[in-house]
């Protein structure tokens, strides 16, 4: 592992940036962490609130096993230590979006301990540098509600739909040294969460957000004082916050100032961070073990079941695509970066192999090229997405089989695919009725070639005298004579035979 060379050039020399991220990921589950209320996004305000979420008198939390399971699965996916004993603590503070007056979290005994995420700085570049980013811990906690300030001229309203929704807080080590590393870390983490299915990773809807800890130092020196910028909700913003905050800190330090340990807010409209509160007026959260909840004690069987339920994860999948399927490093990396892409690829791979009666390995490259460049190009031109209803694996496999069998050219395949997407018609029927087939009839092609060589005897002479470029001319003439429907491979073969 090489060190990052990202530096901020200050008046006094180069500064290194030190970054740690606390990612809050909403756990995928139908019900909240301690109540049976639904977690669906976008419902009318206060329609998904149980008596527990509203902290009515005498209400008690009961842990949702599914949330615990998802946190353990996530920990296992990050090769992290699973703590068989963990405990919930109360974090006490008053705010109108926090009905209990405390958030149930895990300060002292988190459910997951040390782990590591392997991050390629550019996932699409197989030669890009790889960093090991340490994960310090993962703990489970409740989300708060939401204040709405735009409903009434003098009052704020409270929406408790999110109150009590389960979050995982995934805390990294201060192992990142550049915005690019931090961005790659968030993307990789999101990819793993989606593979595991423990979080949908949807940053726009707030189901994943990051608190960004930044400090600067002269390379080799001790860590500087850090600031924490809260609730950053896109990869781009995370990177921007780091740049802005690191530059701000360098400016402060070089002007002889000191960095104040504080919480800051990012304002994307003005692209700046602002102080929210400093350490001096930080809350005293009076953490203590929640007496309503017993410690979580996990059995070996439970952990083993969690492990057994994990899907193949992106790194393993990428390696397998290269070693078993023979894909290029680039194709393997791109196909495995997102769980959804890999899933679609594998479905089409199976369908295609079956259709052609071949092994997966024999059609993998064809399917990869189609999935990564040809099909997306046509989709983009038509302005449709991959989840279009006509974009079925069967239709794609049928087209690939025709290409593979030689009856359809690459160009014809695109045309057929375009009609499939537009109409949902059968691919083979389109090829037949729309004349989108090429001929592999050697007799017919040979006859045309004979004619062309005859009428262009001079060019044949020149070619034989060494003007190799003319080969393309003969191919073009043959294709033209065949009205573009000759199998180019056969045209090439026959021409070589005649001319060489």
């Amino acid at each position, binding site marked *: 592992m090489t060190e990052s060379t990202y530096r901020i050039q200050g008046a006094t020399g180069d500064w290194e940036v030190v970054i740690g991220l606390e990612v809050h990921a909403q756990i995928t589950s139908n019900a909240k962490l301690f109540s049976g209320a639904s977690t669906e996004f976008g419902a009318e305000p206060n329609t998904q609130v149980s008596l527990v979420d509203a902290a009515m008198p005498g209400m*008690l*939390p*009961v842990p949702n096993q599914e949330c615990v399971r998802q946190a353990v699965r996530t920990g296992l996916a990050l090769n992290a230590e699973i703590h068989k004993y963990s405990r919930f603590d109360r974090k006490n503070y008053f705010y109108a979006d926090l*009905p*209990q*007056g405390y958030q149930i979290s895990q300060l002292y005994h988190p459910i997951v301990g040390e782990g590591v995420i392997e991050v390629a700085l550019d996932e699409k570049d197989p030669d890009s540098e790889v960093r090991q980013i340490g994960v310090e811990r993962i703990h489970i906690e409740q989300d708060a509600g939401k204040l709405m300030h735009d409903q009434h001229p003098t009052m704020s309203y409270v929406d408790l739909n999110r109150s009590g929704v389960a979050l995982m807080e995934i805390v990294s080590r201060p192992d990142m040294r550049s915005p690019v590393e931090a961005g790659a870390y968030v993307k990789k983490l999101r990819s793993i969460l989606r593979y595991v299915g423990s979080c949908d990773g949807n940053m726009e809807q707030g189901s994943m957000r990051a608190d960004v800890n930044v400090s600067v130092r002269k390379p080799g020196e001790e860590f500087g004082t850090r600031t924490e910028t809260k609730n950053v909700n896109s990869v781009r913003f995370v990177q921007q916050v780091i740049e802005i905050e690191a530059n701000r800190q360098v400016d402060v330090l070089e002007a002889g100032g000191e960095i104040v340990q504080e919480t800051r807010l990012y304002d994307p409209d003005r692209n700046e961070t602002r102080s929210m509160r400093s350490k001096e007026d930080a809350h005293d959260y009076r*953490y203590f073990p929640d*007496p309503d909840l017993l410690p979580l004690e996990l059995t070996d069987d439970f952990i083993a079941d969690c492990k057994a339920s994990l899907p193949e994860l992106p790194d393993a999948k990428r390696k397998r695509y290269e070693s078993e399927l023979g894909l290029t490093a680039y194709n393997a990396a791109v196909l495995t970066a997102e769980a959804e892409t890999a899933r679609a690829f594998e479905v089409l791979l199976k369908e295609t192999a079956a259709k052609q009666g071949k092994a997966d390995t024999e059609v993998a490259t064809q399917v990869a090229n189609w999935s990564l460049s040809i099909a997306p190009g046509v989709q983009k031109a038509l302005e449709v997405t991959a989840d279009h209803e006509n974009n079925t694996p069967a239709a794609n496999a049928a087209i690939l089989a025709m290409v593979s069998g030689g009856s359809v050219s690459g160009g014809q395949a695109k045309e057929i695919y375009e009609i499939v997407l537009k109409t949902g018609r059968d691919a083979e029927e389109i090829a037949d009725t729309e004349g989108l087939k090429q001929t592999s009839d050697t007799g017919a092609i040979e006859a045309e070639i004979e004619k062309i060589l005859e009428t262009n005897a001079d060019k044949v002479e020149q070619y034989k005298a060494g003007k190799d470029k003319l080969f393309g001319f003969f191919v073009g003439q043959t294709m033209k004579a065949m009205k573009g429907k000759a199998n180019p491979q056969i045209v090439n073969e026959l021409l070589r035979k005649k001319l060489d």
Partner: protein
Amino acid sequence: MTDITDLGIKAIRDGVREGTFSAREVAEAFNANVAGGKELNAFLVETPEHALAAADAADKARAAGEELAPMAGVPIGMKDLFCTEGVATTACSHILEGFVPTYESTVSANLWKAGAGMLGKLNMDQFAMGSSNETSAFGNVISPWRRNDGGNTDLAPGGSSGGSASAVSGRLCPAATGTDTGGSIRQPAAFVGISGIKPTYGRCSRWGVVAFASSLDQAGPMAHDVTDCAIMLQAMAGFDPKDATSLDLPVPDWESALSSDLKGKRVGIPKEYRIDGTPAEINELWDKGAEWLRDAGAEIVEISLPHTKYALPAYYIIAPAEASSNLARYDGVRYGKRELPDGAGLQDMYAATRAEGFGPEVKRRIMIGTYVLSAGFYDAYYTQAQKVRTLIARDFEQAWEQCDMILAPTAPSAAFGLGEKADDPLAMYLNDVFAVPASLAGLPAMSVPGGLDGQGLPLGLQIVGKALDEQSVLNAGLAIEQRAGFTARPDKWW
């Protein structure tokens, strides 16, 4: 025929089953006593219609030849800490004034399922914080008992379940629910000459019970005698998936297994409970209690609970710490009281609402709790108190190697006069000295009346048992009850 309102749970249940009287007659008689008992200030809310409806259901079931539920036809009083659907629930605090739950606590629901009816909601110390019922926002409860000095001083019924104690003792109800965090069932039961049991922590669901200190709060019955306690506890207890600390165990048939034969049982007398300043009458009663248990077949052994003296300080750190957090939800945002001064922001609303809504004792405990949990003090207080709690529990574990249950006084004094200790919180806290260790250890503990002091006031004896061994506690209580011959009752002056 005797007055129906002299009867306890078992006599009423059996009388209704046998048709000696109808459940409606019972409900009407107690409704009348409740209506006529206002001077005691035991009931905050009267719900005669609830009691009558349950009674009618019992009578109807009997007429139809159906098997009657375990408490069919028995009307009871409900401590105001229990949320009752459609019936105001305030925990005797102004901060919950006007709050009417849309839900029924598990314990009260269990009682209704068992056929009981509700006569009303009972006064108590505010948020169950107090030992005299004087911290209630709705006036103190008065004990039906009077000293025999002719002075007619109003006496405290104990607390926090003071309304329950006064109402049962004054025959306003045959039994009542109580809750016990650090003696709140046992001490008031002792003060008014009735029985009360706090079961093992986790036996009764805390769901729907306004929380004081979650790791200590336990509901239990307060009734005339041990058998009634067994019947009612059986109806209240049971696993509740809505309470993560609820014990997933079947409820034993304690009533059927009641036996005052203590042969083979060893009863421990903890030497650390001999505290300087305890009135001689209380120590004499304690000795007498040991004698009664020996007479019932038990062997009496002296034991040591070495960390006893740390129990009270630890309790007064842990309970306020939990309370300071549990009571944070009373913020004026969603229910109960809201004080919104002109131009007030959120913080102002919190401050005004809580300043206005909470009484002085509640504020004191919130402040103590906030202090002991704050950064810099947490380890010195809370962590240390938790260690003490572990040691107290270990004391009991070690004691069980020598004995099966422990006998001690319930409280260090008989009932005191209202106002006598109200200005001295520490003197008030000392009232829990014998009760708190069992609470910290989560053990079942019961108070039964043992006799009267020189002023003619009841004194209680306490039996502490092993976790889940309510049966031994009840059996020892029964043995004492049979030998103490406690028949004294307050003269009706109200």
